[in-house]
């Protein structure tokens, strides 16, 4: 074997703390290394060209590049060596940037460590084998999980491009959080006027199948061929028959149900159509409030329904779909602000959340767009907005900025003045974060044109006094304590990953961070991909973002999915397990532990043997670590290869 070694300077990123020439010199003494050099930017065009030239000139059969993390540029270099006629798996990387040059400044230690990492890589490379991928067919259908604005955008873009799309929405209507908003910043245009038509498009698109009030139950399979089980929750109304006339909701006698869509601002009925523009515009029964279910008798809705759609016996139903790719767009939820006892923890009716306030402002909301104090129905004069409630607060485990609260608070302050001209808004803020197109100008307008008083400081306590709310805060610019007598307090409640997001991530086998947000494949270069091939992200499930960004990401995810599913065949990763049949004793231990059921028992001349199903194997290597005699080996990560790396380090 002829190995060539290339030590990348990465400008000064590596060369600043590693003596790259010295590393190359040491590398030239390693077994089978016939050529070693240092190179300014291995990944840049001249760098790749130099590698290709060296392969040709020295007849290299394997290449080691010591540079950044293989998680970044391994594919780049594999393509490069392939261009020079070397199999892409006859290539190894040594990570001397993230794992060496960036974490310490001791040049002697770094240079030595880099040289050792190269030795490990070369030792492994000596045992690399040429691997060739196999092709398998693709299911040209996309699953979109979540029917908020990001999911809608992804679904429509993909469907418009001719892809079949299956959309799953947890709630009885699509629209997500955006459907609850009255207006949007910084244009103050009507939220439902811009979202509504897109929701209708989803309903009417011939390529989109919508499962509302449904949840993802199970995902198996792999990129190009996922098997998905969707549980359609019982709505107790046959949606094929329901015309959405709303007669049932008018007649329902249980009028004190919690109104989920309206965030509990005012009650609703047990059988509901969440709002007039709901998609699908179908009724469903909330079992916990329904008299038929709780008392065993009522049946009013069944009696009044003109099409006989109500069915109290309805059961959950599971549908199975095959898809080639998945877009997760599950959005966010509000932080549980009731942990703030100092803000009343929910004891004071006139302390409301920003989303509740949106519903109050909305003309189609429960108050018909009239802002009223929940306690006595009067119109407030002094309205206090408190920002960063549940954001930037390490003490409740939410140290991050939710990103959009500053802007919606400004919008709400403007709308307050529009709705109640005689009102005065006070906004307690820590910092105003408005780095968007027209955003900062917007936050100036609310102060300059609408007269909202912005107070730089946090609110320490809210308590009732004589029918008003006393808001005790600080104005740190004045350096004093301040108090405001408020009629209504609106908490700009921060957001968090939607409930059960981690459970969904586990089903999809994608990573999530400590807060439950899904992890993108790379923070800069793969913002809508995940580390699981075929699964993409859109919207706030990946990290909190406002509407324009969510829409952009929805389109991006659709583009990525289209790119994947435009192909008829996909290449399988050849880094999978394979069985040496004469060494296998048929003990079944590998079969027992394989998380993907990718190993089956076959009969070979009367002897039981294990066999890997190549398209199902994901290459985790658990079988390899389980097999006592090492009869099953994970290609490219064989026992011998890992042992070679260990031995390159520990040789007594």
């Amino acid at each position, binding site marked *: 074997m002829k190995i060539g070694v290339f030590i990348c300077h990465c400008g000064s990123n590596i060369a600043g703390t590693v003596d790259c020439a010295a590393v190359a010199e040491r590398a030239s003494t390693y077994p089978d290394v016939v050529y070693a050099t240092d190179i300014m930017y291995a990944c840049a065009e001249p760098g790749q060209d130099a590698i290709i030239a060296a392969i040709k000139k020295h007849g290299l059969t394997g290449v080691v590049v010591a540079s950044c993390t293989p998680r970044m540029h391994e594919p780049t270099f594999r393509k490069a060596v392939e261009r020079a006629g070397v199999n892409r798996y006859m290539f190894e990387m040594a990570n001397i940037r993230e794992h060496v040059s960036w974490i310490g400044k001791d040049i002697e230690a770094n240079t030595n460590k880099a040289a050792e990492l190269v030795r490990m890589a070369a030792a492994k490379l000596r045992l690399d084998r040429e691997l060739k991928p196999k092709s398998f067919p693709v299911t040209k259908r996309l699953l979109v999980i979540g029917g908020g604005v990001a999911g809608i955008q992804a679904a429509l873009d993909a469907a418009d491009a001719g892809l079949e799309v299956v959309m799953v929405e947890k709630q009885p209507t699509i629209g997500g959080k955006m459907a609850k908003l009255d207006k949007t910043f910084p244009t103050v245009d009507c939220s439902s006027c811009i979202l509504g038509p897109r929701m209708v498009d989803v309903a009417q698109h011939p390529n989109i199948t919508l499962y509302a009030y449904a949840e993802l139950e199970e995902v198996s399979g792999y990129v190009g061929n996922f098997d998905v089980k969707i549980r359609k929750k019982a709505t107790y109304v046959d949606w094929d028959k329901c015309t959405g006339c709303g007669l049932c909701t008018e007649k329902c006698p249980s009028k004190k149900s919690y109104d989920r869509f309206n965030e509990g601002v005012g009650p609703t009925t047990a059988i509901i159509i969440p709002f007039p523009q709901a998609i699908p515009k179908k009724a469903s029964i909330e079992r916990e409030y329904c008299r038929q279910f709780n008392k065993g008798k009522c049946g009013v809705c069944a009696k009044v329904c003109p099409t006989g759609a109500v069915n109290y016996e309805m059961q959950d139903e599971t549908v199975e779909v095959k898809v080639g790719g998945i877009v997760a767009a599950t959005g966010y939820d509000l932080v549980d602000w009731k942990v703030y006892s100092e803000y009343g923890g929910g004891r004071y009716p006139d302390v409301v959340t920003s989303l509740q306030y949106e519903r109050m402002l909305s003309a189609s909301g429960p108050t018909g767009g009239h802002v009223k104090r929940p306690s006595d129905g009067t119109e407030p004069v002094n309205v206090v907005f408190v920002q960063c409630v549940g954001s930037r607060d390490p003490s409740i485990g939410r140290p991050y900025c939710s990103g959009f609260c500053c802007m919606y608070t400004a919008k709400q302050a403007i709308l307050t003045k529009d709705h109640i001209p005689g009102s005065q808004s006070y906004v307690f803020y820590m910092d105003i974060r408005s780095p968007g197109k027209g955003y900062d100008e917007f936050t100036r307008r609310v102060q300059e044109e609408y007269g909202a008083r912005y107070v730089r400081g946090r609110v320490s306590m809210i308590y009732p006094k004589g029918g008003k709310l006393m808001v005790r805060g600080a104005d740190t610019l004045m350096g004093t304590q301040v108090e405001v007598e408020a009629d209504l307090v609106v908490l700009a409640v921060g957001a968090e990953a939607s409930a059960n997001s981690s459970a969904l991530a586990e089903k999809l086998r994608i990573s999530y961070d400590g807060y439950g947000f899904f992890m993108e494949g790379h923070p800069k270069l793969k913002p809508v991909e995940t580390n699981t091939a075929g699964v993409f992200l859109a919207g706030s499930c990946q990290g909190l973002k406002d509407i324009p960004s969510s829409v952009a990401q929805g389109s991006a995810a659709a583009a990525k999915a289209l790119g994947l599913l435009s192909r008829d065949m996909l290449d399988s990763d050849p880094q999978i397990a394979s069985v040496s049949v004469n*060494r296998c004793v048929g003990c079944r231990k590998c079969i027992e532990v394989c998380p993907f059921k990718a190993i089956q028992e076959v009969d070979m001349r009367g002897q039981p043997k294990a066999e890997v199903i190549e398209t199902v194997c994901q290459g985790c290597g658990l079988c390899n670590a*389980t097999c*006592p*005699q*090492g009869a099953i080996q994970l290609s490219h990560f064989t026992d*011998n290869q890992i*042992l070679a790396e260990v031995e390159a380090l520990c040789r007594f």
Partner: protein
Amino acid sequence: MSIQDELKSAITAALPDVSCVVGWGAGPEPLRAAPLFIRGEADLEGFSAGFLSVNNPALYLPSLKGSKVGVVVKGCDARSVGQLAAETLIKREEVHVIGYPCRGVIDVDKVAAKLAGACETGEVAALREDGDDVLLNTPKGEVRLAKKDITADKCGRCAFPNAGNADVFVGERCAPVVTEDGYADIADFEARGLDELKAFWEQEMSRCIRCYACRNACPLCVCRDQCVAMSREPHWLSQGDGVRDKLFFQIIHAVHLSGRCTGCGECERACPLGIPVLKLKRALSRRVEKLFGYKAGGGDTPPLLTFLVEEPTIKERDWK
């Protein structure tokens, strides 16, 4: 009827249904019995079970897979049968298990120590049991030894003297040995301290001759010809004579048996150099038992082939 006779009639009853019954018969020396493969009533003549029935007959079961066989087992052997069945290395329904109460077996090395200077164990002409003692005919006359002084260590902590999973059980069940800590020997061993133990294994393993008798005697070492000790693909070990490779083989054996070893002790008994290789396996068994409450041989899924999402007994370091 004596236990011997009962066993014989149980074997006779089984013979029509099985290709053979594995038991014990006369060995090369009076102190050593040997495995006996009983294929017909004629073979029964040499059969005996008792104080000399040291070998674990479960060893032969995986290679006899495919036809119905019978096996006469001590309690510890029965654990091996149970473990083999739990791992589907044998089919339990293919094995007719005949059990009897075992009150301990001989440790010939201990006899040798008792006879030290007087004669070799191979020179003992006959052995006769006399209550709690045995009488040995040696060239230098009759020697009386207390059984308890020459019984195998494992019998002194035996929790399963009666083959619990036997299809046929003869004789009266005897009481298990109750010990406060079944692994006190390991605790004592560990108490010698890290430095001494390291030196201990260096010394012991320097004597190892790589004969693999330990492995060949292990009823759960089913890889046999495919053992990693000799393979190049994967190549875990060199064929050199160094301590580290020889010790590493023992580590491989112990790790491959973790959560599986029933503690039958055949590895250690088979070692021609008397290296206490069972200690490594018992150290792991102790840990497995502590973590998962698992004693190999009971028929449950081996703990390392399964998991719990929340492991109540694993206290992970939190790195705070």
